[in-house]
């Protein structure tokens, strides 16, 4: 496959869909198709629209077509000593940049370095009016107009076809060191809360039910000093990739998989099944046969929300929205996609 600007063909397909009021199922590598509700529609495949449009490492910005394989984008950054700070999971070899953006999923570094949306500087979008438009740009600061680009991150293709994105990238840390500390989950959370208030170079923190796993990133001096202070055993950094790609033994449990998003100082949650802690406590993975209602009630009680990661397990994989929020979601969808052709129902039946 070669770099190619296929936006004209994508635009043509959207315009035909608009003319015939045909719903579109937007898809890249299909690596994250399991997430969200099933969409019935004609497939719009973004993968022919690929390639890096511009990259100047000293500007810390890369602009890329959304059909580009995520691995290809990361290889280009890696060669220049830079990275996507949010560590997006691939969840399959075919993952594309568009899928990363549309799902908005971020990896272990997220609490310290921000989410996918925090890297977004600008986008090109094919709209429900059959136009390809540009929002944001390639500069770090830009407050002209509404911030549609960041809104699109995590919108699951429900507001239009994103064809291009400009992302802020950063240099890779000079040092990275992973540690394993023998602590139970409760003590680990208490320690993480204490360390979170101190200027320590922690860039990942997870508890797999056995031990606390930490990653330190920064300059040589700060990493060495933190290593000295925190103790523990060296850990193979492969752990973080296996965590991010859901390849740890925990994920082999046959029960449905849930992602719980919580305040970073939430206590251990008592729920049927097994849990794995990530994001320093702010993200918990749950393997459980408990009902969606039971899980969501427990999570909502501490101000969080739960998403089901097992395809088809429940009709609303994302936490239902409060009535006024749902109303404005529908209003926004109606304004930006008046014919409702973009991934209808992928997030919520009503959107």
């Amino acid at each position, binding site marked *: 496959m070669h770099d190619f600007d296929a936006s004209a063909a994508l635009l043509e397909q959207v315009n035909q869909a608009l003319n015939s009021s045909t719903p579109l199922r937007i898809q890249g590598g299909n690596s994250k198709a399991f997430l969200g509700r099933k969409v019935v529609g004609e497939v719009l495949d973004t993968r022919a629209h690929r390639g890096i449009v511009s990259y100047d490492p*000293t500007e810390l910005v890369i602009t890329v077509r959304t059909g580009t394989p995520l691995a290809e984008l990361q290889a280009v950054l890696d060669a220049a000593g830079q990275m996507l700070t949010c560590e997006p999971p691939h969840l399959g070899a075919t993952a594309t940049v568009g899928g990363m953006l549309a799902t908005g999923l971020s990896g272990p570094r997220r609490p310290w370095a921000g989410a996918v949306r*925090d890297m977004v500087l600008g986008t090109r979008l094919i709209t429900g009016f059959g136009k390809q*438009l540009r929002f944001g740009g390639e500069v770090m600061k830009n407050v002209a107009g509404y911030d549609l680009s960041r809104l699109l991150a995590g919108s699951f293709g429900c507001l239009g076809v994103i064809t291009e994105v400009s992302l802020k990238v950063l240099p890779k840390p000079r040092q990275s060191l992973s540690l394993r500390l023998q602590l139970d989950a409760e003590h680990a959370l208490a320690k993480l809360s204490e360390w979170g208030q101190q200027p320590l170079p922690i860039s990942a923190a997870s508890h797999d039910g056995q031990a606390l796993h930490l990653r330190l990133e920064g300059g040589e*001096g700060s990493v060495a000093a933190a290593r000295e202070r925190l103790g523990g055993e060296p850990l193979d950094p492969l752990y973080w990739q296996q965590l991010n790609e859901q390849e740890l033994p925990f994920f082999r449990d046959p029960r449905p998989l849930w992602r719980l*998003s919580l305040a970073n100082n939430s206590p251990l949650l008592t729920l049927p099944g097994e849990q794995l802690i990530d994001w320093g406590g702010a993200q918990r993975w749950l393997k459980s046969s408990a009902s969606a209602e039971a899980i969501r009630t427990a999570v909502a009680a501490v101000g969080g*929300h739960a998403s089901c990661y097992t395809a088809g397990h429940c009709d609303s994989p994302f936490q239902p929205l409060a009535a006024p929020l749902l109303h404005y979601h529908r209003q926004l969808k109606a304004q930006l996609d008046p014919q409702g052709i973009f991934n209808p129902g992928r997030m919520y039946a009503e959107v």
Partner: protein
Amino acid sequence: MSILYDERVDGPLPRVDKPALLAELRAQLPDLDVLHSPEDLKPYECDGLSAYRTTPLLVVLPERLEQVQSLLQICHRRGVPVVARGAGTGLSGGALPLEQGILLVLARFNKILEIDPAGRFARVQPGVRNLAISQAAAPYGLYYAPDPSSQIACSIGGNVAENAGGVHCLKYGLTVHNLLKVEILTASGERMTLGSDALDSPGFDLLALFTGSEGMLGIVTEVTVKLLPKPQVAKVLLAAFDSVEKAGRAVGDIIAAGIIPGGLEMMDNLAIRAAEDFIHAGYPVDAEAILLCELDGVEADVQDECERVRAVLEQAGATEVRLARDEAERVRFWAGRKNAFPAVGRISPDYYCMDGTIPRRELPGVLKGIAELSAEYGLRVANVFHAGDGNMHPLILFDANQPGELERAEAIGGKILELCVKVGGSITGEHGVGREKINQMCTQFNSDEITLFHAVKAAFDPKGLLNPGKNIPTLHRCAEFGAMHVHHGQLPFPDLERF
């Protein structure tokens, strides 16, 4: 083309029956402070963009959420426009009142509701000052990172509305990157929570959409911000250059060395001399440009990075590199930069501060373009630059008492912003569009993009009552503005009707 609200191009505003509205507010909200006499309204006729003034219909100063909610419900029913205002420090006229609208002042909502050191967040009312949050968090070794220059006075509600920045954005992000949750009231007075106590929330990222929406989509009534541990140490290097090009290249070299400074600022010779004259920061007044590079973090790393940056700066041709010897000198180096605006105010009766952003590599060309415009319009321009993130603040020097100078200053300002857009930048990095840059929006966005912005507005405020006329121009305004700016014989909006 004037930026003041012009119903001919900005759309008709409702005619409000002031006595009837006042009577209803008094009846429904007897304990709400309402200002209505001309002498009481006068102090509210402008925000930080003081060249433009409009007397509001009424000013209300609520103290309780229920009052704001009832007020919005009344205004929604009667069709009365509402302009929200925090501390009134905004530089783009985002809180410029309307003659037919209520000015909703949120300054009395000034309570810090909660500082949670374990959760690393602060929950505050919208009228709380930016700096007050960091001060309240300081006993826990925490702080709120975004630090706009007006942080002593500006309020967090306004920061959310404008997506405020500051000198540490490259490393620590803008307001949008440092928020967890906001409570809002919609145009019809409904309460809604955007974001959550967790790091994300279900559904569309409306928190991102609302941040920087200039009070057009809802009224912020409570803000939960992230707090960060205070960096252990901060050190500042000052480098002098005999050309701005060399200084600009040095910035790229620092980034290329894999270093992200906490702050990275550039000033040109006119700004250096004005600041030195005012603050006596110890700046080299003969330099064509200086860079201030702040490195912060853990002691061992900062030492190491200072040495790396020093080597990069010397390699890049700096004529002098100085490390602030102690905290006092570090503060002095920054004082010069942070007071650059008032310093310029001392050498000119008036100045006009611009806020364009550019890809950094375009700096030499843009500075050359600014110098040419300066000569053409006969007005001096001092350049202060958040060099790390490409945010320029050209300061146009003029004398409003000289006939025509304000108009010339506005004209050159507009040209500078158009130059920023031409090289791939933006008309505003952190000050917002407000009314000030309403015309230049037509340069940065085409009519389809502007139409989509209006669609977003319609989703949240179909009656168009929240801050009408700000941020997004009408297509009529763009058509008229475009007619005055024909490029290469082609109108920017060829498909629009002309009026």
